């Protein structure tokens, strides 16, 4: 979803070939996972069908990279709309951390132990990210590390918060009636 808008954003400055787009994309957004050529061309074909990009030149020869793409006015409008709309917040409501805590309590195991080891693992990850951010070559790289750091910190705050409420949660988990036994 966001790949097509990222490509539109890259095309807004100037028309480009697919290969050029892939390189620009990877430089800016591909830190975690570079985009594959196939996906670039598939996305461009889709955008072309939707009228959001157009081919403005085809060089002699064969292969998909001979086409030069440009954003259309519909594409610009679409990009405007996308950037102007807030994203749906996506809290991971049934995250595996939550499930593990409840299953631990249900089965009489130590949820506290799980939360402690999870906290240690999270702190290790945050330490590695802090080092990566310090060594980041660009503000963009640093902010990407920050993005991950803030999210891990949110998990940690939840871990601490849950740990302080484990006794109440344990009672509640035990008291939930099984509907089949009604």
């Amino acid at each position, binding site marked *: 979803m966001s790949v097509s808008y990222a490509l539109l954003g890259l095309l807004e400055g100037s028309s480009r070939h697919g290969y050029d787009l892939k390189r620009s994309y990877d430089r800016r957004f591909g830190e975690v996972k570079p985009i594959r050529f196939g996906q670039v061309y598939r996305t461009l074909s889709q955008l072309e069908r939707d009228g959001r990009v157009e081919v403005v030149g085809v060089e002699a020869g064969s292969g998909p990279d001979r086409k030069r793409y440009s954003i259309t006015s519909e594409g610009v409008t679409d990009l405007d709309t996308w950037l102007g709309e807030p994203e749906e917040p996506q809290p991971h409501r049934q995250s595996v951390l939550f499930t593990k805590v409840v299953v631990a309590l249900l089965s009489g195991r130590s949820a506290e132990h799980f939360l*402690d080891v999870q*906290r*240690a693992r*999270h*702190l*290790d990850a*945050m*330490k590695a*990210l*802090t080092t990566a951010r*310090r060594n980041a070559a660009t503000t963009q790289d640093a902010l990407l590390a920050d993005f991950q*750091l*803030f999210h*891990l*910190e949110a998990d*940690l*705050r939840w871990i*601490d918060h849950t*740990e*302080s409420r484990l006794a109440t949660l344990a009672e509640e988990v035990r008291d939930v009636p099984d509907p089949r036994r009604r």
Partner: protein
Amino acid sequence: MSQILAGDDLHKSFGLTQALRGASVVLDEGEVVAVMGPSGSGKSTLLHCLAGLLTPDRGKVRFAGRRIDDLPDRERAHLRRTVFGFVFQFGQLVPELPAVENIALPLLLAGRRRKQALAAADPWLSRLGLDGVGERLPGELSGGQGQRVAMARALVANPRVVFADEPTGSLDSVAADEVMELLVDAAREHGTTVLMVTHEPRVAAWADRTVLVRDGVDALGQGLGMASP
């Protein structure tokens, strides 16, 4: 690395409240260690006991192999002035003194001449990005600047251990990062050991190791464990 500071089976109560109930911790020379834990877990009390600001009811504190918890007040005060440095949440700068004099304070208290002390304090200004603010009073500094002055003050006498209690507590995340980077860099450069109490994981992530305090004891029961590699 050799051991520089150790607390062994520390107990401390305030009235009926037991703040520490047998906490132990060992710090190696040059280590940066974060102490975390919920509010009221005893983490600040632990720092204050290790720094000689509080006397534990039971247990021992050793600095460089020497027991310091049973020293007379005067000797402990001397130790705090000469080999320890302190940074607190709200800087606690002397409001009547300009930044550079606040930085020079530990040297002046240790008996250095004013001119010498100010000359030693001066390089810290540019080092911590405080060029041009040396003559400003604490009230005229931003939160981040004030905290950097407090940090320079903690480091100026080249202490062996810096104790920091929520050193970024009143700062926004950008200023907090700057302050932490400066603290960690300066500590590494001088081989200074840092013990900091924080409730913020992003701040603890700057440390070499994190220690978790819960209910006045080490949470994992292994000499304040939860060491990260």
